[in-house]
């Protein structure tokens, strides 16, 4: 298992360099140079320009700049924001928990709803229950997030008044961030009702963000389940006299999960893309909203740092997914 882990880790390293090169080049591929960009409309006199070029290292050859950048990245230095002048990594660290909280809830929602839907659809293949679940998931998949989110807000927040419209916590509460995860922080605090407030703020963004992955997972689970249910070993399991429930949950599902887990891993990338929209709509103070703001202000170090960090997280999750195959599927674990 350790060997398997090391091999998978080795596969990630080239991707890491690829991502850093792309992100590094971004700043040099934009029309106009970064110093002019920073100076904005006021412009900058040649003396100051040279000074700044030196300060940011733009006077060096590209390769040297890249290795300087890479060295910084490896030490956790993603540069400073043009706008706030704070280190990008610091801003990222304060905002990231909010995004993790939302993404974890989103993926949980997607898996908890999507997986059973797919299994049910497969069991009742061709019956009305199958058609119903598959139409629901196709609708969910086709719905643009911003539109879906607005619909949810209009119906549940405005019309029914069940959930708050935006933010992470009601203004009545003040919670000192310790972990940065609102659900945990409110649970640990003495403020009564704060946890419920945090939870209710999470519901709509979670649904908005989790709907597309949910639909993808449901459809993938269904087709994977159908394939496995046609296998000979399922017949053998039934010939042993096992209950239909056991055949499905133990013998079929575990085999069917292998492709589903791949999809879940890939959905994490989709989730971050979705988080940018969802966070903007729900004023969720996470990195999605942060990157959108940085884009609007052309704050390149922040955009670079944000993209790099998201790429790392997606890579990390997919590495985790690869490792999970090994746990689920012995054939992969033992392959040399």
């Amino acid at each position, binding site marked *: 298992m350790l060997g398997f882990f090391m091999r998978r880790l080795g596969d990630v390293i080239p991707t890491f360099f690829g991502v850093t090169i792309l992100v590094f080049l971004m700043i040099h591929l934009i029309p106009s140079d970064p110093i002019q960009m920073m100076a904005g409309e006021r412009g900058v006199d040649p003396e100051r320009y040279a000074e700044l070029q030196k300060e940011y290292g733009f006077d060096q050859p590209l390769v040297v700049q890249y290795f300087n950048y890479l060295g910084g990245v490896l030490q956790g230095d993603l540069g400073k924001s043009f706008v706030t002048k704070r280190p990008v990594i610091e801003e990222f660290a304060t905002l990231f928990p909010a995004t993790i909280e939302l993404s974890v809830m989103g993926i949980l929602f997607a898996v908890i709803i999507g997986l059973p839907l797919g299994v049910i659809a497969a069991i009742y293949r061709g019956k009305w229950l199958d058609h119903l679940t598959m139409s629901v998931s196709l609708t969910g998949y086709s719905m643009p997030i911003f539109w879906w989110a607005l619909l949810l807000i209009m119906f549940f927040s405005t019309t029914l008044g069940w959930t708050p419209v935006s933010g992470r916590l009601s203004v009545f509460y003040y919670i000192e961030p310790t972990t940065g995860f609102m659900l945990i922080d409110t649970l640990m605090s003495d403020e009564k009702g704060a946890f419920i407030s945090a939870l209710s703020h999470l519901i709509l963004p979670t649904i908005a963000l989790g709907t597309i992955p949910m639909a993808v997972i449901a459809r993938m689970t269904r087709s994977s389940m159908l394939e496995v249910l046609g*296998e*000979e*070993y399922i017949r053998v399991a039934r*010939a042993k*006299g096992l209950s239909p429930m056991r055949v499905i949950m133990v013998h079929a599902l575990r085999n069917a999960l292998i492709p589903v887990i791949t999809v879940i891993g890939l959905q994490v990338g989709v989730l971050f893309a979705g988080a940018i929209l969802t966070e903007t709509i729900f004023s969720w103070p996470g990195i999605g909203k942060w990157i959108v703001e940085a884009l609007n202000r052309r704050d390149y170090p922040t955009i670079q740092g944000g993209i790099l960090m998201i790429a790392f997280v997606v890579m990390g999750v997919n590495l985790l997914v690869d490792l999970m195959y090994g746990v689920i599927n*012995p054939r992969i674990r*033992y392959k040399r």
Partner: protein
Amino acid sequence: MALLEVKNLTVEFGSEDKPFRAVDSVSYSVDRGEVLGIVGESGSGKSVSSLAIMGLIDFPGRVTADSLTFDGQDLLTMAPSKRRAITGKDIAMIFQDPMSALNPCFTVEAQIMEALKVHEGGSKKQRRERTLDLINQVGIPDPKSRMTAYPHQLSGGMSQRVVIAMAIACQPRLLIADEPTTALDVTIQAQIIDLLLKLQEDSDMGLLLITHDLALVSEAANRIQVMYAGQLFESGPADSIFTAPRHPYTQALLEALPERSVGRDRLSTIPGVVPGQYDRPKGCLLAPRCRYANDHCVASQPEVTDFNGRDVRCFYPLDDQGLPTGQTNSQNVGETV
């Protein structure tokens, strides 16, 4: 009373008004300690009838029978949970392809222990010991280390031994072996059959051996049942069927054995294939391929009749010389129609 009694078992697929009969009114019985061989070409309904006995025919397949009893209990009207308690415990089945019969995600041990857990209970330690016994019994070398192996780490022969261990785990009274050696190479085939027969003898099980290997069935079975296109064509004691086939199909099958073609240029064959759903003849299902078929055979279907103590579905059962009885030469329309 026989252990397994099947009377007029029919399995249909497709729409209600235009069904396809994969198995058509087949009857047989298996006793304790008896080996019944079912032979026939691919597509003759051998496997489907055994799946029907196991209760493994899924919607849209329909199973009907005048009676389908195991040890006096009616399997068809039984509650599903009660039937599951018999399936895998008293009636067990071995499948054709051992490489796909084992779940790739679980160890050998886990898969054998599962049947024990469901039907016999007991502590985990007891089940593990019993599993070790079983693995020993089916002749797997180095049982201890094989217990924790995954199916992809086993050869075909080893996998089939595991499948057999799984099937006999709860000491079934009836074992259905559906072409247990087809997917294995020849040297392993003999070993697996010997193992099956030894297990059958030791525990006085009834064994339903489904195969298209005539040589195998002639050695192993007490009685033989020849099936064709879902119908029973001939049944009787193994030795007499081989010496004196009463049905033209049985005769043709035996002639197709390579050892019967010694000294001839070509092997004997039966022209054509088993009729499927869309090309079913109106009369006798064998008529298009039968060398003795005449207009009567093409026009109407024969019933199963008793001929010299043998069940035969033919208008003109063969005599001891292998020639059709009751047929005048003028009626004969030649080899194939």
